[in-house]
């Protein structure tokens, strides 16, 4: 697969937290790593320290379960993710999926809802556990640098939400989320001076904004 190094986390696959694995290519060419943790020389000197056996066993079992059901489970989750995106698109205009439309992990959907700020959107949807790519949720006022580097403009980055789906997500929950998102976005667009300007035919890029830097 052309992989040099690959890391795996237990908690990403419904296994225990605090445990993971690192794949290191052995040849063609061999990847050479310098350890960060020194001591007793555990794990071939790469990561010294007493091994956490219960977590390792748990992680091992989680990967076993993953192997059994991964293909179908991924298809099911991708289906729900597409259902969510289609539901959002059919109910709202000016919504944009951030990232590649198909070449992405199955359980993630990141959407910009133009003219509505992400944090205010989250505030109106307490029933949904989502995160915002906009600044206001975190301690920084800058929007997500990941969105920025994948080409999302700063104004749209402020309007983005990240939806995560998982093993226990159901179609009913997705439909509930679609309704909730629709209602909240429409409510906040009624409150949005940007939406009003666009409805009046104003090009937002032509406006001289008085920003505070």
């Amino acid at each position, binding site marked *: 697969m052309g992989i040099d190094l690959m890391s795996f986390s237990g908690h990403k696959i419904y296994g225990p937290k605090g445990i993971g694995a690192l794949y290191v290519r052995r040849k063609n060419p061999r990847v050479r790593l310098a350890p960060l943790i020194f001591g007793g020389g555990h794990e071939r000197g790469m990561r010294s320290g007493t091994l956490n056996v219960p977590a390792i066993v748990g992680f091992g079992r989680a990967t076993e379960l993953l192997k059994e059901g991964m293909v179908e489970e991924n298809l099911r989750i991708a289906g729900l993710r597409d259902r969510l995106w289609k539901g959002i698109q059919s109910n709202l205009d000016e919504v944009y999926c951030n990232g590649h439309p198909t070449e992405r992990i199955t359980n993630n959907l990141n959407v910009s809802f133009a003219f*509505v*700020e992400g944090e*205010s959107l989250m*505030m*109106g949807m307490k029933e949904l556990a989502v995160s915002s790519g906009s600044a206001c949720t975190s*301690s920084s006022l800058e929007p997500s640098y990941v969105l920025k580097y994948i080409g999302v403009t700063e104004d749209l980055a402020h309007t983005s939400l990240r939806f995560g789906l998982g093993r226990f997500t159901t179609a009913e929950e997705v439909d509930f989320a679609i309704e909730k998102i629709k209602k909240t976005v429409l409510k906040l667009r009624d409150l949005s*001076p*940007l939406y009003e300007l666009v409805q009046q035919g104003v090009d937002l890029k032509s406006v001289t904004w*008085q920003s*505070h830097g």
Partner: protein
Amino acid sequence: MAYTGKVVDHYENPRNVGSLDASSAQVGTALVGAPECGDVMKFQIEIDDETQVIKNAKFKTFGCGSAIASSSLATEWVMGKTVDEAMGIKNTDIVKELSLPPIKIHCSVLAEDAIRGAIRDYLKKNGK
């Protein structure tokens, strides 16, 4: 982000949402902030020429819950005040009333700018 009840109340029931006729000589309009910064407030006031009292105020805000609450509160506060009195509203008053955390202080600054901007627009229109 933990918000106080007052911010949530203004977010859920924003006061005086809407628009006034920006072309009217009695109306002052301000549009402050920028979409790239994540906050834009449109703030409008209607003033009685005789008494210089603000008899109506409307807002629309793109921004976080604190930005919405700050501008909503500002419409409530300016109504019934004279232009001079409204000019005296400070962002720190808004911070205090809504118990805004330090990271949200810029929302109150924007609301103060919005109030002053709308008053200045009215004064300019009327050659004052």
